[in-house]
């Protein structure tokens, strides 16, 4: 029998970016809120301080800030015909844990999606005809438009103090920014970064080919900044320890730096750490959530009754909570029926590596997570896809994020993997090699999905989430095309050799690619093909809302966090202005 806590208005499952924003927004509306975090508390001071934070082995290699897979992991297979086996060691993606979640260890690359990304199906069919989708793609329109999200993008970017240059101010294209972006009401709150050396080499080459390079919008501060919550951020020191690390300087936007101090100062908002939610409790009809069950630090099973349950954990972990709790109908790829687990997508990464002569010192250890110079000429539908055999695209460019040597020691093809020749090649090429990366979209298919594993369980006895995924043919073609374009630029960057590497099947969970795991609880206009409505409210259990990138119907060629933040503010506004006045379905 579970230990029963006093009922509250809202329970937040997970306290990263989305939980922190909702704690503040709904706390301000006067609701009694409990935020449940499976990990421990952590903060800039005393946890993320130098020099111990500058430890590549502990944080980047041993995954010091990541989900503890010894307790909780995923199973994986490339297709439904295979037996799924557990991801015993994290590799391809790295979900965070502890207070702040992935919002602590992210790089800070902060992108809006294109207006046409929100109409991915309609837009492509209007321009290229209905055959463009082929039999493979299960691409859907979003139930929300860019224009509707614009004020919420703006709000999240000002919360974070993003440094960038507008490319489109209310329809007027601006020099220095991304000319392809949707119109924004005002410029970024802070100026853009200055290019690093490798970025500058990329920019010159891209300009020579007629493209439009610009600096990536950055959550690493480009100057001292006080956000609308009254919280102060400091300029980034360009230390090279962003990705997989916490920032010691108050210089990278995180829930701790940008919002949690305000949220947790409210007497009606309570944080409970070491509270591992195992399921959402539903009534007998499975149309209303009554609270959640969690395991506390002592191992005790605790029931937290609540009027509303909001899933705020890492996107695909939210999908698992829904499947375990029986919220909505699980997706079945054989029939196409069901919604929970549908349209799991990822990101299609590739690169063209440039090897320079030893007189060219790139010094990429002088880096920051979002210090990048890119072009957007081959993203979304920014270029004509006629006759190319695929839809979608990605941005491409050079990031300079730290070049920490356990993981970064490039050698040219043909170099032995060890021994004297390997060693001399590492010494020769370490400071003289950079990569043009392609950040490609991931299109939904009928066969890529999430479900519960039938064999493997976590430390609490709950079934693991099973991931069935391989790169769609569409995305393999797209990656080949993008990598060709990246190689053309790379060859003009003044190096000696260019080595392209595009995405190929089969997808592997072993080498790190990106932690942009999206979809599985997608938003849509039709309850038969989506798990949540346009306000991220469950179609089936209307007092459950589901945050995060699991809501993306498919994943465009950008980093997801800006859109996750914008959707959270969008949903919070609907909860405050509509749901609280008349609890029930917001879309019928």
């Amino acid at each position, binding site marked *: 029998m579970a230990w029963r806590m006093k009922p509250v208005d809202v329970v937040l499952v997970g306290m990263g970016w989305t939980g922190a924003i909702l704690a503040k927004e709904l706390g301000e509306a006067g609701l009694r809120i409990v935020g449940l975090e499976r990990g421990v508390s952590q903060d800039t001071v005393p946890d993320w301080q*130098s*020099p*111990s934070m*500058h*430890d*590549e*082995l502990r944080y980047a*290699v041993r995954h010091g800030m990541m989900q*503890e*897979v*010894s307790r909780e992991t995923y199973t*994986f*297979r*490339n297709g439904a015909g*295979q*037996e799924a*086996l*557990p*991801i*015993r*060691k994290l590799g391809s993606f790295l979900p965070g844990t502890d207070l702040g979640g992935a919002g602590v260890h992210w790089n800070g690359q902060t992108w809006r999606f294109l207006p046409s990304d929100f109409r991915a199906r309609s837009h492509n069919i209007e321009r290229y005809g209905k055959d463009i989708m082929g039999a493979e793609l299960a691409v859907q329109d979003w139930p929300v438009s860019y224009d509707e999200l614009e004020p919420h993008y703006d709000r999240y970017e000002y919360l974070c103090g993003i440094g960038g240059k507008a490319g489109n101010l209310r329809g007027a294209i601006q020099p220095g920014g991304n000319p392809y972006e949707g119109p924004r009401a005002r410029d970024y709150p802070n100026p853009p970064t*200055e*290019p*690093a*050396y490798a970025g*500058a080499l990329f920019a010159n080459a891209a300009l020579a080919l007629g493209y439009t390079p610009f600096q990536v919008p950055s959550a690493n501060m480009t100057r001292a900044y006080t956000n609308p919550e009254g919280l102060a951020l400091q*300029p*980034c*020191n*360009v*230390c*090279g320890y962003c990705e997989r690390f916490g920032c010691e300087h108050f210089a990278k936007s995180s829930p701790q730096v940008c919002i949690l101090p305000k949220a947790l100062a409210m007497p009606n908002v309570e944080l409970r750490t070491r509270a591992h939610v195992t399921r959402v409790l539903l009534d007998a009809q499975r149309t209303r959530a009554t609270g959640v069950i969690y395991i506390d630090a002592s191992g005790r099973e605790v029931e937290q009754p609540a009027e509303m349950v909001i899933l705020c954990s890492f996107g695909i972990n939210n999908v698992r909570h829904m499947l375990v709790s029986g919220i909505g109908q699980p997706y079945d790829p054989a029939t196409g029926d069901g919604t929970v687990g549908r349209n799991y997508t990822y990101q299609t990464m590739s690169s063209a590596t440039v090897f320079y002569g030893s007189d060219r*010192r*790139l*010094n990429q*250890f*002088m880096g920051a997570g979002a*210090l990048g110079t890119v072009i957007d000429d081959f993203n979304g539908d920014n270029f004509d896809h006629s006759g190319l055999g695929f839809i979608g695209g990605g941005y491409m460019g050079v990031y300079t994020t730290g*070049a*920490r*040597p*356990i993981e970064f*020691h490039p050698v040219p093809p043909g170099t032995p*993997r*060890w*021994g*004297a020749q*390997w*060693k001399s090649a*590492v*010494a020769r090429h*370490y*400071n003289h090699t950079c990569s043009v990366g392609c950040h490609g979209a991931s299109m939904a298919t009928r066969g890529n999905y999430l479900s519960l594993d039938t*064999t493997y*369980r976590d430390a609490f006895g709950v079934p693991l989430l099973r991931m069935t995924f391989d790169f769609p043919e569409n995305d393999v073609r797209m990656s080949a095309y993008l990598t060709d374009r990246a190689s053309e630029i790379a060859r003009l960057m003044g190096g000696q050799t260019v080595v392209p590497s595009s995405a190929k099947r*089969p*997808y*592997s*969970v*072993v080498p790190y690619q990106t932690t942009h795991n999206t979809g599985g609880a997608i938003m849509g206009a039709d309850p038969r093909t989506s798990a949540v409505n346009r306000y991220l409210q469950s179609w089936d259990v209307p007092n459950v809302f589901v945050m995060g990138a699991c809501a993306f119907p498919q994943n465009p060629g950008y980093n997801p966090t800006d859109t996750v933040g914008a959707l959270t503010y969008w949903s919070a506004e609907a909860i405050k202005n509509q749901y609280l006045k008349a609890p029930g379905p917001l879309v019928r």
Partner: protein
Amino acid sequence: MTDLSRRTLLKGAGVVGAASTVPAAAQHAADHAPPGLHTRQNTNPNYRFFNAVEAAFVEAAVERLIPADPQWPGALAAGVPVFIDRQLAGPYGRGETLYLAGPWKQGTTEQGYQLRLSPAELYRTSLERIGQSSNEGKTFHQRSGDEQDAFLRRLEAGDLDLGGFSSAIFFETLLANTVEGFFADPAYGGNRDKAGWRMVGFPGAYAAFLQLYTHHGMTFDREPLGMDEHTGAHPVVHTIGR
């Protein structure tokens, strides 16, 4: 600091140690010795995980993976065996970053590691088998460098069965741990004298480049800094060379 100036410094330190018989000074010299000068700390590094037979293999093997050259020490002098030993004796060795629950099945390459062995168990199991299989009159560390390389290539290719699993799994773990030990912060026992960092020009835990990173192509030759010697201050002024 150049190799030459370091040797000069060590020469002085060695004289002090020999003359005064103060162990601390001698130990300092041994800890910071460049290739060729230190033998003592590697013959008795006080291993916590490896037994003497295991240590003999690992010391010889890592030195083939990253051998000494005229300019830079190899993995042995850089303390990589000590690094791996300490890792295996701790949480990593116990498998705290792994999901090890059963059932255990052979998966595809794309599904990654599927054994029930923690890293410590993987080393112990593999080294026991290797000790048996390489017993052709000479153990691994007694063979010539070329013979050792040939044996490592067989491990790499998965030619040996180490107890129901391919030797390639052990080899890849050993190779990854060797690279880790060559480049991880010296606080972990490897990368001795920051040799790995010096070799590539990585500044280590030193981290304040806001005023430098826009000086494209500059020569940055500041002494690398390990966590344990970090003062907590961030020097932001540096001489810019071209």
